[in-house]
């Protein structure tokens, strides 16, 4: 459209945004293994002033309706998704529920909610849920995931992490980790768990909630504000690894996108999450890029850099792809361009 109606104000990526989500509806995804204390945390949040205007989508696995009944009294709008796990069986239900929220809000039959909170079932793999929001066609034009929270139970967390791959993946893909029920565990157990979580996901900050008591802002603050977002290097087990690719100086958008397209074509399913800020040649602000498996979020340019650091930095969370291969691929694409 810029060809027909050009604007000197616009960037190659469209309107520059003040923040990554632009005007989209912010979404908090709350994951955590069965019984980790997600519902308690959400109920507390909904009763706080910060929780006002939140629409809640609850995904149940098994005992349909119990958690929904717990949160319904305080949420602006609650949608219950039954029949299984959000990540696989009912992902289309999630899309339908989100679309319905938008339509109902437009029609005035739903209150003018300001954010959406998705409580996943304990067994959910967060990656496919993130995909739901990644493209315009898949609701990325309306919603934006501000933060993925994973709740880990201080008493049973260690066992869940040891026994269930889903629990490990929830921790690895989180932006923020919340340890619950610390009042029921010894300090030594909590400390051991904390160290294990740090090893699994060094990028995420770790908060502690006792009986659901957590600063409500921590439920909604965008993950981009986490200071530790770009901490490198973690070996997670299950073949999952994460690392940060950094680069000084402007990046050619054509080179970067060509490398990512190649990577997606070769190993798309194993790119669990890729997210970063790029100093793109010719752009004033940083360009936010995000990929979930084979889907790319539309890149957006921000008005300004969040801090003094102008270095391009991209976090890769991958499965069974050696870091070296990705670095080599980017180097090769760059060399070809020259």
């Amino acid at each position: 459209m810029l060809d027909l109606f050009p604007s000197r104000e616009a960037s190659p990526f469209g309107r520059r945004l003040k923040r990554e989500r632009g005007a989209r509806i912010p979404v908090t995804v709350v994951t955590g293994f069965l019984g980790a204390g997600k519902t308690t945390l959400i109920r507390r949040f909904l009763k706080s002033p910060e929780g006002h205007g939140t629409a809640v989508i609850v995904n149940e696995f098994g005992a349909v309706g119990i958690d929904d009944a717990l949160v319904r009294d305080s949420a602006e709008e609650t949608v219950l998704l039954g029949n299984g796990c959000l990540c696989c069986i009912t992902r289309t239900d999630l899309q339908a529920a989100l679309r319905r929220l938008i339509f109902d809000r437009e029609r005035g039959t739903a209150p003018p909610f300001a954010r959406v909170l998705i409580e996943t079932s304990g067994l959910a793999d967060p990656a496919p849920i993130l995909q739901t929001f990644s493209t315009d066609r898949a609701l990325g034009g309306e919603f934006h995931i501000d933060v993925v929270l994973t709740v880990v139970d201080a008493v049973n967390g260690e066992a869940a992490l040891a026994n269930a791959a889903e629990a490990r993946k929830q921790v690895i893909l989180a932006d923020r980790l919340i340890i619950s029920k610390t009042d029921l565990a010894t300090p030594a157990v909590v400390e051991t768990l904390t160290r294990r979580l740090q090893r699994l996901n060094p990028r995420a900050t770790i908060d502690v909630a006792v009986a659901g008591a957590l600063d409500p802002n921590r439920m909604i603050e965008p993950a981009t504000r986490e200071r530790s977002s770009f901490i490198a290097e973690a070996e997670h087990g299950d073949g999952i690894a994460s690392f940060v690719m950094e680069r000084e100086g402007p990046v050619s958008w054509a080179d970067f996108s060509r490398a990512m397209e190649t990577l997606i074509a070769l190993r798309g399913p194993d790119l669990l999450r890729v997210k970063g800020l790029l100093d793109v040649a010719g752009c004033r602000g940083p360009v936010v890029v995000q990929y979930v498996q084979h889907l790319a979020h539309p890149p957006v340019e921000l008005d300004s850099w969040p801090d003094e650091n102008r270095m391009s930095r991209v976090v890769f969370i991958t499965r069974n792809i050696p870091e070296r291969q990705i670095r080599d691929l980017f180097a090769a694409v760059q060399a070809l361009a020259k």
Partner: protein
Amino acid sequence: MNAPDKNPLTNGYQPVTWNFKLLANDMLGGFGGMGEGMSVQIAPDGRRIIWLAHESAPKNFTAVDVSDPRKPKVVCQTDLPHANMRSNSLETCGNLMAVAYQTSKKDLQPAGFELFDISKPENPKSISFFDCSGPHSRGVHQLWFCDGEYVHCASGSRDFVPTNPGDDQFYRCVDVRNPSKPVEVGRWWMPGTRQGDNVMPPTRHPIDKGFRAHNTNVYPQRPDRCYLAYIDGGMFVLDISDKANPKKVSQWTNSPPYTGFMHTVVPLFDRGLMLVTDESTENNAKDWPKLIWVLDARDESNLVSISTCPLPDHRIYAAAGRFGAHNIHENVPLQTAWHSDQIVLGTFFNGGLRAYDISNPYQPKEIGVFMPPAPPGAPTGTIQMNDVFVDERAVVYTVDRHIGGLYILEMDF
């Protein structure tokens, strides 16, 4: 479709703030019924002052120090000489301010505009008054003054006898280069609206608001053009390269089938686009839909409507007061104004303040809403957002038509 009184949707009206952050609200000393004149001055002492025209008597204008947008402070509030008039519109340029005066009936005084020296915001000094009164005139409803040289206004005149009494205001250009002696240099009216014209008077609309001028915008990118909204006559692009003889370049109207009252025309020069607004003037959304229209203006002689900015379901908003488009931020060509051809901010009475992303002009998308609770004592029981201005810091100022005064906001998108 259910009748509004039986439709459950009409129960849905409630205040909402979406992607705006309220920094402050000032009810302006109990005189918070504001018109459509908002202009920001940087005073000689460095203070940032927003000048606001009142919608109706008894107050004329109010100056508010908004250097700290979180702590606005009224520094000046003036009275009108009598209750049968209003100021409604004003503009500042440096330390000069032009204020419109419109009387409620014809042949009253003072009807015209007044120029003030505002170098001391606490003590504005009158420089001159340009008289536009007459047996068929209510004076000036709106004016545009950004270059320090010419006031472009919607005005009546002693020598103008309209074919219909409702068509009394037309486009006038007044030279104020010598501010103590303003002189009219040109005028234009829609053919058929003045007695003696050689064309038939226009056919009236069912809701008859007059074939008369409203906004008279002129921009330095095209100093030879006036973008003239003409209420029930639609809008005109005028060639004013010869100010003494303005000529019509093109006209665009949506009425009928729409219900008239075209209000503002804002060209987006780089993009070949134009924004045109209606004004809702009837309570309970009787004149719905009143919209912001996006025009493809790449060929100024053939303007093509390509979209409108979407509004929520009017049945929800029909409950109280006006609902629909009115003023938009006009990219006033001053250093104290914000300029954007990507975002449109408009006021919609009980629909509050709304922001739209028009980066794809075929699909404007709502990106922000500020619809505060009804101010205490609001006669309609709702907010009636009337005008909006954004300064170069991107601080948003918006005013209530009845009582709520000034709201200062931050955009959050």
